């Protein structure tokens, strides 16, 4: 698509006119992707610091005392303390953050496992031995993702209420499975499509069993994909608010629900709010930073391929 764009734009005139001459060389080096680009680096770094500033500020404020947190101008160099964290985890505030953290962990981990159990066979059926009309099926999966949650949340609420599964973490786990399944099928399919057809055929010709083919040919290609898919499902479940707010309450409330209630119940203690935000974001931040490449790979493959 893009390969023909250059011809006719007049840039070809330099060819052969003065081979090896200085101007051409300079132009070449400017486009050379291996060259260090200091100017771009400085701008990129400034932008990166600017974008990270609210996160860094949140972390710094969480280590300040309440007095130092709420000053104008900001007290950047104020002494650091763990008070806010102690108060957040301590019983002095009257509410323990542990149940919501455990609920979030359960909702994220179990729904991710369920998603993988459903998505991997489906992705296999859509990529390695594709069913007829596999693109239509894949588009159906994607189209369910485009339906806003608000359009289904009321029937879910009514159903949960009448069946007694309101404020039940397992019902939320099923809903998160449904929420992440389309993305997971979509991503896993692109990863499995990477398995070279020739290798599968060769395995078949050699009489390899399905299990052996899965283990030796498909698994090595699929493993990074499974990791990336799990990571993204985990993040989306951990972050979700609307369904959790509507479908859970006291017993099964997740961390985001807890966080929204935290401010109202505690009044505004800025350092404590920041500490709570840090604690609740920490699992995602750590997982995301540690597996950046997987995340990028997962997003771009899942989104673009």
């Amino acid at each position: 698509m893009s390969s023909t764009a250059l011809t006719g734009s007049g840039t070809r005139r330099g060819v052969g006119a003065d081979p090896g001459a200085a101007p051409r060389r300079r132009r070449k080096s400017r486009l050379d992707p291996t060259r260090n680009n200091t100017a771009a680096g400085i701008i990129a770094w400034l932008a990166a610091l600017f974008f990270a500033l609210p996160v860094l500020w949140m972390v710094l404020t969480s280590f300040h005392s309440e007095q130092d947190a709420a000053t104008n101008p900001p007290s950047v160099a104020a002494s650091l303390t763990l008070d806010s964290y102690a108060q957040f985890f301590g019983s002095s505030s009257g509410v323990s953050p542990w149940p919501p953290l455990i609920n979030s962990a359960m909702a994220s981990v179990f729904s991710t496992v369920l998603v993988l159990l459903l998505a991997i066979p489906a992705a296999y059926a859509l990529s390695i031995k594709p069913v007829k009309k596999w693109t239509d099926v894949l588009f159906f999966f994607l189209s369910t993702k485009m339906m806003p949650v608000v359009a289904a949340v009321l029937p879910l609420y009514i159903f949960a209420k009448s069946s007694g599964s309101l404020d039940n973490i397992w019902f939320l786990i099923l809903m998160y499975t449904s929420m992440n399944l389309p993305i997971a099928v979509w991503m896993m399919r692109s990863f499995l499509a990477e398995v070279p057809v020739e290798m599968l055929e060769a395995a078949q010709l050699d009489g390899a069993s399905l299990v052996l083919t899965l283990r030796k040919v498909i698994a090595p290609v699929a493993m990074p994909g499974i990791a990336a898919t799990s990571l993204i499902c985990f993040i989306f479940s951990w972050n979700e608010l609307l369904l959790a707010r509507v479908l859970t309450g006291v017993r099964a409330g997740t961390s985001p629900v807890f966080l929204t209630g935290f401010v109202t119940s505690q009044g505004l203690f800025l350092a404590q709010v920041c500490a709570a935000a840090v604690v609740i974001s920490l699992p995602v931040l750590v997982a995301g930073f540690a597996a950046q490449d997987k995340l990028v790979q997962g997003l771009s493959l899942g989104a673009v391929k």
Partner: protein
Amino acid sequence: MTTTALPDTGRRLGRAPLLRPTARERATAWARRAPLMPALIFLIITTQLPFVVTIIISFMNWNALKPTETGFAGFKNYVEVLTNNDFRQAILVTIVLTVSVVLVSLVIGLVLALLLNQKFFGRGLARTLLIAPFLVVPVAAALVWKHAILNPTYGLINGVLTWIGQLTGNANPPQLDLLSTQPLLAVILSLVWQWTPFMMLILLAGLQSRPADVMEAAQMDGATGWQVFRHITLPHLRQYLELGGLLGAIYIVQNFDAVFTLTSGGLGTANLPYAVYQTFYFANEYGVASAAGVIVVIGSIIVATFALRTVFTLFKKEAAR
């Protein structure tokens, strides 16, 4: 639900259709379909069924506080949604929010992707910092924006303004109160901050998939940086720009967390998802909420049709593999 709008892709795999499939072939076809079925059935039950119920409720008089007065309402709820000023405002807010956040984060994301595609000192760390907004739990991010950044008395923005004022000898530097004077702008700002890294990641993947031979040919031909950008990079990135924009749009149309946390829908910042939530959760107007929900879906289908077409063009290439 939206699949009907899709063109038939025509990729037929396996053997050409025979007039009468043998039992063996039918069995093979089912063996291929079997792994797909659990996921498909699960999704139909959990997403399509509730939506059908939403459509049914949208045609009913149903206020949860008046359980005896339920019945068929015809289009009354839809008329209510489309003539009610709050709902019309919510539709407008949803459009403004989605369009502005998508466009601004796409443009900034493109610039950042182009910068990060260069080689420079500490590029990996810079990328890590840039991903951070995408990784903070959205509610936590919204809380931090509301209380630690935008708060008029001790937020970071006014703190910095005071600090600059003190440095320049101005005892009363200008102070901002975005949350009460420009609440929608505050929501847009925090969402742009959160979505720019997402756009950057998709565009970065696009940049890295630029065909190397074409880039090399352009270098050999002595193309300038701008020429390469205009004639190679931009056409190549077009599909990634469209996709990032449309995926972003699908998520931002549905945004709940930022509106809920930053403004609680106050001061004319309620978008449709928030309005629907309020209508059924606090006003208990199940019928009206469902009608509004159906309208959100119709709007999303319009966006999604474009999205699916874009994905479809990407897809044709691979289907031809």
